[in-house]
């Protein structure tokens, strides 16, 4: 069946901000879908609140609304745009749920909008656990023994039928949010309570525990002619019990006989047909009993997913693109498999001749109160993927892609401790983020494969592979490098050992191993990802390195440039940097320079084989990058756009005489080296907060006294404010030093004077070396001391005097000039009263670059890339200007995923994503940003106010605004007294320690609609944590800064009905 001609315009809903369980994979799929539909001539209308996406680039859709993904907002957009159809399967659970609401509320029927890709019935059947179970039974498939509960009574009844351990999952939440495994009645009740609340339908599914069963996923695509294909099978190395997003996974499945695999394949098709996924991609998860092969269906997602992005990258088959085209009427045989240049149709099953491993990346270090254990609630914040000709090679390449300073299976267990056997046993049986390393240590310790298999459920096949790697390590340990033969080194390289790991084992340097390897003529060969195991020839340059036979790289003689990507998502370095890398690649292509991308993050647009001329899916580490430079021989390498990841390679590149395009390495060093930076500040006659660097803990207290409290303490060379803390006195500093990593010459600690109540500002500057332009000045809402990544901010500044803004611009340009920046630079300032202090300078693209680019309607990265290649800003006619709107960024935080964590903002970054709110006033933009960040803003009710002493001076501003906005005020004793003194009415409420009823009771009873709670000092923070936690769990709007509170007052002046909803294409043309 060819393309439908009755549809002219299609609404696509994006996934919104990056959160745990829903990351850039939906940018990747969304971009594919929009591009494919647009190319077919449909008018594409897009709603997505996330400005850091490629999807919201003005060229991707015809009308792009960077607006909250909220059914009422979208209903207004539908009324205005009158799309013929809505494609809900590209934006994760968020889009699916929103589409369902639009349907339930009658919006789709009212405006005659057809759901394509997945109908309401199909979504219901797949997502509603009870309905899903029933459906599976009706086609003779097994699901785990289970029951549904809508309240605690039901839950206990179900428990009797199932017993412990059991798995509890709330319906309609993403990444299994709020779920967990209960081993006893207490845990059971806690998880159920939370789950009932988190589920929008107050529904829980309680399952028999399949812990230890093997877990498989199949990615299925079906068209309107009922043609079905499996794109890829994925095996979870971590068996059932660990969320698939937190599992190490391997494609294709390795431990199934063909007969068993075909059973899963047949069942997958049966499920799609019965659920009624007429067109598009779905993912089906199975558990298989390793003892007898009993198969149980776990779940299916009637949409593209994290796994489908992985499967697309793993095979070269673009599921989202194909799914989008199927949803408008095409059938698989009418579409081409592009990677083979159209030699084959899309109606086939990819087959692969390599192994792909995905390894999740965690951020437990950001949440010290959260127990670092894995369960059915997803907790990882990013992932890496790696290719190898064998599992061993692929697995080890995955480990080195993580950027955790590990270059192989390094030992992490302290064998000298008395209880290490206990520790190993514990770590094996209760999975944590580093389980695989403990597995290796247990093998080192002589534990048998059988016993480890019993404790972990990890299939013996994988354990044997790992064991073999460890045997190689034993042979290598302490050997003399000169005695390493070519065959031996080749064997190690084939098994994926990094030069660095080999060097560590030999007790020599990585450089020596590299020299030795090259002297033996051992270079990697690059093989192609071609969907067909070489059966058909491919021109698509999608490649990975291996040590096997002939190299298929076939580099061109064109002018070319390598762009280094940003690696796995983590808190502090996420999708924003992928956006930048993609734009750099696009700019190169616009200049007709061949763009070569190196990256290892499977979720991203940058690792779409379509994005750059050539893609190397490789770890971003010295060894691999040097190998690629060696074969490609590029004009230079761009390291400005991938966050901190590529900057780490700068020194190596320089050492190997590889040209770094743009800002010089020396400038990078001048801005990152504390002393050199101070000189620069002095030279330019600028201001810096008092600061000092210490290299040993003993000198800390004295040093701190010279700077003065309060202080911001942090290790040097970190991104995202890792281990950054605000300390108010010597006691807190001592505690920090005790808990921090050992301070040393190599690991200095920085002490900065903390500028209380200062306003923080982010500035992005672009330069070609001669002309300097300010991309934008962002004023933070939360005061200095809150990490810039977690702070909301406004473009243009909403309360900064014009002359200060001018001074900031001048200072920024002076710094850029002094450093001879070519490309982008980001500076953070703190403005205290009228003084401007420089907090830090980053000689690279920053997190705010996509945000500003969206607002000004012009890509800073593209202009910067072209400038690096010698095309001046003038020649580019680059002169950005801001439309007459406010653009507010709000951060999105993952506190709901980590129980017991205090949802308070501080100097360490914790947010995973961001949204943009656009408005004609600051208040409107801020209100939209809050709604986009999925925060419930009530427009009247009761406000609870409890502020630290230093914030009490703001009460005379805050309280009248609250009253004006129809809030009655309750407050804790101290704050209440201050409010009374100002002459306002206030009701006193107990702190938790002061007896009942206290504030937490009020919050639980939902008697409060707004919490403004600021606090300082470790003890007070700890004491008041339950307030913030309860507010979070009760979904009560809570701000932990007074500036945040004031901004909310601005937002409350705005009525949703009066919001302006305009596509960015229109906004940015307003000038």
């Amino acid at each position, binding site marked *: 069946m060819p393309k439908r001609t009755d549809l002219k315009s299609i609404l696509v809903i994006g996934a919104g901000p990056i959160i745990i369980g829903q990351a850039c994979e939906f940018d990747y799929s969304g971009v594919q879908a929009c591009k494919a539909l647009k190319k077919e001539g449909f008018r594409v209308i897009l709603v997505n609140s996330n400005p850091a996406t490629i999807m919201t680039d003005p060229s991707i859709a015809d009308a792009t609304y960077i607006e909250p993904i909220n059914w009422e907002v979208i209903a207004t957009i539908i009324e205005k745009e009158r799309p013929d159809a809505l494609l809900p399967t590209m934006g994760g659970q968020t889009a699916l749920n929103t589409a369902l609401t639009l349907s339930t509320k009658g919006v789709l029927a009212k405006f005659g909008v057809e759901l394509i890709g997945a109908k309401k019935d199909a979504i219901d059947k797949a997502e509603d656990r009870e309905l899903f179970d029933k459906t599976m039974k009706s086609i003779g498939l097994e699901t785990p023994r289970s029951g549904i509960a809508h309240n605690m009574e039901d839950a206990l009844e179900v428990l009797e039928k199932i017993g412990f351990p059991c798995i509890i999952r709330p319906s309609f939440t993403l990444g299994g949010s709020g779920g967990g495994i209960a081993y006893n009645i207490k845990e059971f009740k806690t998880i159920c309570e939370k789950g009932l609340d988190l589920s929008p339908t107050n529904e829980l599914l309680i399952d028999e525990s399949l812990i230890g069963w093997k877990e498989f996923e199949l990615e299925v695509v079906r068209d309107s*002619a*009922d*043609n079905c*294909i499996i794109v890829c*099978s994925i095996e979870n190395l971590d068996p059932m019990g660990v969320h698939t997003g937190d599992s190490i996974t391997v494609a*294709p*499945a*390795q*431990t*199934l*006989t*063909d*007969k*068993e*695999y*075909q*059973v899963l*394949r*047949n069942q997958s098709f049966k499920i799609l047909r019965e659920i009624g996924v007429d067109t598009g991609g779905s993912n089906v998860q199975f558990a298989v009993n*390793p*003892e*007898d*092969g009993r198969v149980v269906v776990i779940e299916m997602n009637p949409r593209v997913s994290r796994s489908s992005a992985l499967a697309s990258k793993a095979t070269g088959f673009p599921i989202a693109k194909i799914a989008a085209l199927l949803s408008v009427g095409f*059938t*698989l*045989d009418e579409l081409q498999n592009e990677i083979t240049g159209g030699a*084959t*149709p899309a*109606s*086939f*099953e*990819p*087959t*692969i*001749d390599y*192994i792909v491993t995905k390894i999740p990346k965690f951020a437990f270090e950001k949440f010290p109160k959260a127990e670092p254990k894995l369960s059915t609630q997803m907790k990882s914040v990013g992932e890496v993927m790696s290719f190898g*000709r*064998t*599992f*061993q090679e692929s697995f080890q390449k995955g480990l080195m892609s993580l950027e955790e300073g590990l270059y192989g299976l390094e030992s992490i267990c302290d064998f000298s401790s008395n209880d290490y056997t206990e520790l190993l046993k514990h770590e094996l049986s209760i999975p944590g983020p580093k389980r695989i390393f403990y597995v290796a240590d247990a093998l080192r310790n002589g534990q048998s*494969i059988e016993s480890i298999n019993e404790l972990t459920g990890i*299939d*013996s*096949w994988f354990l*044997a*592979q790992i064991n*073999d790697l460890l*045997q*190689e390590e034993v042979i290598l340990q302490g050997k003399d490098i000169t005695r390493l033969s070519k065959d031996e080194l080749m064997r190690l390289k084939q098994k994926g050992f990094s030069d660095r790991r080999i060097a560590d084992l030999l007790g020599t340097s990585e450089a020596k191993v590299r020299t030795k390897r090259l002297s033996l003529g051992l270079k990697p060969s690059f*093989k192609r990802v071609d969907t*067909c*195991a*070489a*059966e*058909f*020839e491919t021109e698509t340059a999608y490649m990975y390195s291996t040590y*096997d*036979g*002939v190299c*298929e790289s076939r580099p061109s003689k064109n002018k070319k440039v390598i762009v280094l990507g940003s690696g796995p998502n983590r808190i502090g370095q996420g999708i924003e940097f992928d956006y930048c890398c993609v734009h750099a690649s696009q700019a190169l292509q616009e200049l007709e320079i061949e763009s070569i991308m190196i990256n290892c993050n499977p979720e991203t647009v940058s690792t779409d084989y379509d994005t750059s001329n050539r893609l190397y899916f490789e770890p971003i580490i010295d060894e691999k990058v040097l190998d690629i430079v060696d074969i490609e021989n590029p004009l230079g390498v761009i390291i400005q756009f991938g966050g901190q990841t590529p900057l780490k390679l700068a020194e190596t590149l320089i050492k190997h005489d590889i040209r770094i395009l743009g800002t010089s390495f020396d400038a990078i060093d001048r801005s990152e080296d504390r002393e050199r930076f101070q000189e620069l500040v002095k030279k330019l006659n600028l201001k810096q907060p008092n600061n000092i660097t210490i290299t040993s803990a003993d000198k800390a207290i004295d040093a701190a006294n010279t700077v003065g409290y309060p202080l911001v303490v942090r290790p040097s060379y970190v991104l995202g404010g890792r281990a950054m803390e605000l300390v108010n006195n010597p006691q807190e500093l001592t505690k920090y030093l005790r808990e921090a990593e050992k301070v040393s010459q190599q690991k200095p600690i920085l002490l900065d004077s903390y500028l209380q109540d200062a306003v923080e500002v982010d500035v992005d500057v672009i330069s070609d070396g001669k002309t300097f332009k300010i991309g934008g000045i962002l004023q933070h809402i939360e005061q200095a001391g809150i990490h810039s990544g977690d702070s909301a901010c406004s473009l243009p500044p909403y309360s900064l005097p014009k002359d200060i803004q001018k001074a900031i611009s001048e200072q920024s340009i002076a710094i850029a000039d002094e450093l001879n920046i070519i490309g982008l630079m980001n500076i953070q300032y703190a403005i205290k009263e009228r003084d401007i202090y420089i907090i830090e300078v980053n000689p690279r693209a920053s997190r705010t670059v996509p945000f500003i680019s969206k607002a000004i309607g012009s890509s800073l990265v593209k202009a910067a890339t072209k400038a690096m290649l010698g095309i001046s800003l003038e020649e580019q006619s680059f002169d950005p200007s801001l439309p007459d709107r406010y653009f507010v960024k709000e951060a999105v935080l993952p506190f709901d995923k980590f129980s017991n964590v205090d949802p308070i903002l501080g100097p360490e970054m914790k947010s995973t994503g961001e949204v943009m709110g656009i408005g004609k006033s600051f208040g409107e933009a801020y209100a939209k940003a809050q709604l986009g960040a999925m925060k419930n803003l009530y427009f009247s009710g009761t406000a609870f106010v409890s502020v630290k002493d230093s914030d009490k001076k703001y009460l005379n501003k805050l309280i009248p605004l609250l009253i004006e906005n129809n809030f009655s005020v309750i407050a804790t004793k101290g704050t209440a007294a201050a409010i009374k003194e100002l002459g306002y009415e206030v009701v006193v409420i107990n702190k938790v320690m002061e007896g009942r009823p206290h504030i937490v009771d009020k919050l639980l009873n939902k008697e409060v609609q707004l919490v403004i709670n600021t606090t300082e000092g470790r003890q007070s923070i700890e004491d008041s944590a339950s307030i913030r936690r309860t507010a979070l769990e009760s979904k009560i709007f809570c701000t932990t800064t007074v500036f945040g509170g004031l901004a909310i007052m601005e937002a409350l002046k705005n009525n949703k009905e009066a919001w302006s909803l305009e596509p960015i294409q229109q906004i940015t043309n307003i000038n």
Partner: protein
Amino acid sequence: MSFDSKTFDATLYLENGKYFKGRGFGSHKVGVGEVVFNTSITGYQEIITDPSYAKQIITFTHPHIGNVGTNDEDCESKGIYASGIVVKDLSKIPSSWRNKKPLEQFCKDNDCVGIANIDTRELANTIRDSGSLRGCIIPASLEAYNDSDTILKNFSGLAGLDLAKEVSTKSTYAWNEPIWNCNQTLPHDLHVVVMDYGVKRNILKLLRTYVGLVTVVNAETPFLEVMKLNPDGVFLSNGPGDPEPCEYAIKLIRQLLDKNVPIFGICLGHQLLALASDCKTYKMKFGHHGGNHPVKDIYKDTVMITSQNHGFAVDNSSMPENVDITHISLFDNTIQGIALKHHPAFSFQGHPEASPGPHDLLKLFTQFRSLIQDAKKN
């Protein structure tokens, strides 16, 4: 992976002069045949025991082979017919609840030589570009007595080679076993005679499960003998080699068609039915070997993913009037299925019996049963 004493140095030689050094496993002997590659990810045991691979050396493009060991149920015949196996990585330990014996031991017990640590992707690239090649695997310790040039010169290749009669059963037997995990009552009302040109067991199992009673006879069984068995339908099996020299089979099929005996053919059986209907066949460049091939049902306009294993194909440039093309390959538009216009006979080039591979075409077996039933009614 690391190898223990059971493995040995060996080399794979190709007729174009290329050679690949690796570690031999299984039977310590010389293996010679036409080197082909198979792109299936699962099902190596079924593949190596498929008689259609007689005189062929199979290269697996999937890098890990041997992961799940071997078992009794997954054999497609009584042993290994391939003359050699080429893999990238032979799994050191098998892991499956169904495993009975590691692949290495299975090869040894079935007198087959394998070679591991080979860049099988490079080998597949070579075969794709130059077409199937003659090749041989020689263990290092046998090099002294075996010259690869001579061995390859003496091996004539598969064109013109009738291998069907070599691998066929010597005696007639009844087949009673149903498919794996069968929960169906077996039909007893119809009787199918299977012409064994190298039949795979899963075909017999499917015939027994979905069609009726099954009797397997030697490839060269003459028409009258076949008819004496009172078949309701005759099945033409898969098998190795070139269909053209199998004149006895072509003659038999013509006699069966004359009597309007319902016929279903697979693979070699398909080619033989085509030849008996005056079509032509030819040797393909490197054939189809894999489990991911899309085949279009021309009448229903749907696509099925199929298992494929053939080096010869029916020529579509000279189709006689009495033959309908029912299926084509979407990889290269070659003929995948035919039906005769005036006789109750149809056939399929790929492997609807799967094993290994997708089950998308299992319905051809019930279609055969319907064909027989319809024929009986008339």
